[in-house]
């Protein structure tokens, strides 16, 4: 648990302090320097420069900031949506439960990437959003977060539903009901605390999944749009230069890999701490 947590903290700190580091080193991740393209590592550019002479290390930090922000924001949003759905399905039961869980099953079984490609390529201008707003970087980030939530909410929904079903017939919940506690109070004070542990595990694991999803969409040109860059979109540029400068492709991919595996190992370690019955179980 220590190692993945440490690795993740290191990546997060490096990414989030990117702007300060850029300021400190007197560089700018977006500064183009055509005279020093593909430069070898030096004191000024610790990892060298890319095809436009931009500092690779600063770009990696900047890309990490974008990728991690999307990963964490979407994971939290998906946990919130999933929790709401799971509580509704588990507590209300009946038709609500059947419809919501059928929807979750449907989402899990679909070939998601092909469908996400359509959603990512949609022209928001055509549904009445102004051209300048539809193409702003804020909206392009929001779009990725929304797409990720559409995919990821199901895990939290199933977990919370299952836990709600188990908890709602327990004596302390019955006692609260007979004392006249309202539904929101019961859900918030009695049911939610009982699902926190698996929910934290699922959310940690989903950060990695979302970063992978963001990276593939950005790599295909449908995710993070320039001038913003994420690790995925950096790889998109590097693909064409793979034979002449392979390092440009190796670094961002390695960052994605390290971040995602750190999230997964941390989630697994948390799982074992909360549920020590059997190590290595999913």
């Amino acid at each position, binding site marked *: 648990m220590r190692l993945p947590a440490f690795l993740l903290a290191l990546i997060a700190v490096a990414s989030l302090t990117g702007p300060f580091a850029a300021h400190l080193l007197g560089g700018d991740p977006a500064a183009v320097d055509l005279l020093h393209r593909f430069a070898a590592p030096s004191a000024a550019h610790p990892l060298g420069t890319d095809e436009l002479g931009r500092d690779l290390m600063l770009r990696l930090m900047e890309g990490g900031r974008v990728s991690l922000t999307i990963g964490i924001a979407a994971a939290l949003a998906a946990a919130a949506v999933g929790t709401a759905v799971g509580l509704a399905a588990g507590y209300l039961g009946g038709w609500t439960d059947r419809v919501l869980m059928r929807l979750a099953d449907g989402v899990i079984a679909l070939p998601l990437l*092909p*469908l996400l490609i359509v959603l990512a390529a949609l022209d928001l201008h055509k549904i009445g959003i102004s051209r300048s707003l539809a193409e702003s970087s804020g909206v392009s980030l929001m779009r990725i977060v929304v797409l990720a939530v559409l995919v990821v909410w199901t895990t939290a929904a199933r977990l919370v539903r299952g836990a709600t079903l188990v908890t709602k017939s327990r004596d302390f919940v019955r006692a609260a009901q007979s004392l006249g506690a309202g539904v929101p109070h019961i859900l918030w004070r009695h049911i939610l605390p009982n699902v926190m542990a698996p929910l934290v595990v699922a959310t940690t694991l989903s950060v990695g999944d979302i970063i992978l999803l963001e990276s*593939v969409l950005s790599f295909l040109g449908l995710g993070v749009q320039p001038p913003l860059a994420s690790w995925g979109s950096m790889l998109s540029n590097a693909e064409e230069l793979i034979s002449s400068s392979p390092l440009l492709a190796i670094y961002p991919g390695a960052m994605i890999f390290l971040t995602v595996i750190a999230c997964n190992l941390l989630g697994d370690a948390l799982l074992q701490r909360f549920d020590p019955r059997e190590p290595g179980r*999913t």
Partner: protein
Amino acid sequence: MIRFTAIRLIEIAAMLVLMSFVIYALIGLMPGDPIDLMLGADPHLTSADIARLKVLYGVDRPLIERYLAWAQAALHGDLGYSRLFLTPVAATLLPRLGNSLILMGSSFAIAFAASLGLGIAAARRPRTRFDGVVNLACFAGVSLPTFWLALILILIFAEGLGWLPASGTGGGENGDLADQLQHLLLPVVTLVIASIGGYTRYIRAAMRDALGQDHIRTARAKGASEARVVWRHALRSAMVPVATILALSFGTLVSGALVTEEMFAYPGMGKLIFDAVMGNDYNLALAALLLATAVTMLANLAADLAYAWLDPRVSYQ
């Protein structure tokens, strides 16, 4: 069982109808519209021509009317023309589907066989060094971005060593099988690495549960050999939860295949869907997305039936 299958098939059909409408509506919201594209290709078109083309293609009618016209034609086997390939959609689709099924089928078979071996071996030696290494390797497998893995494999085996071709299906005009297999190797390796980690973890977990059950102790007590205990008694009950997970994982396999095909310029469904969406080829994108969804749902159904076959307690009545 027949009743269950029939109900599921009707459900799948209903789902496909629903999906076809949603996708039809969404595809209309993609950048560019067919009339603009024609205008771009031929600047001599007058506004009268454009009005005439709009009527011809039905762009002036409301969405639901256009959808019903498309659905009626589709039910008669007419999926329209592909704008990118200048062929009827069905003629482009079917060979691509074949290529994808070859890629996904062989990758799935290899990944499943290998993860069966690894998962069972790890489950029999819990908390040993071997188990730990397998566990870590599985995490590495599920954490690798598929497109980056493909890039690295191309870099090493195609660019660096020059052993294997990096793109296409090969075979040439006379269908040289060895050449085709060579072209298939890197995409299959990519897809196997991308899926093996998840499968192995499921199988290991299911096998650990199965090995702890009472009937395993009974089998050992009556003197069954270890191989028989593991491969006949435990595996059969472990396969029940594994079948459920596999049923849900086909969608992921299709997603992985899309990336793999795109990276290796392998002419399958995934690459076709991506190219059609990017190239505003509405008819093709719609039919290809529906076909991919249908194949995934049928694979799901197959796994559900395997589930019933594996577990005699499940009757689906």
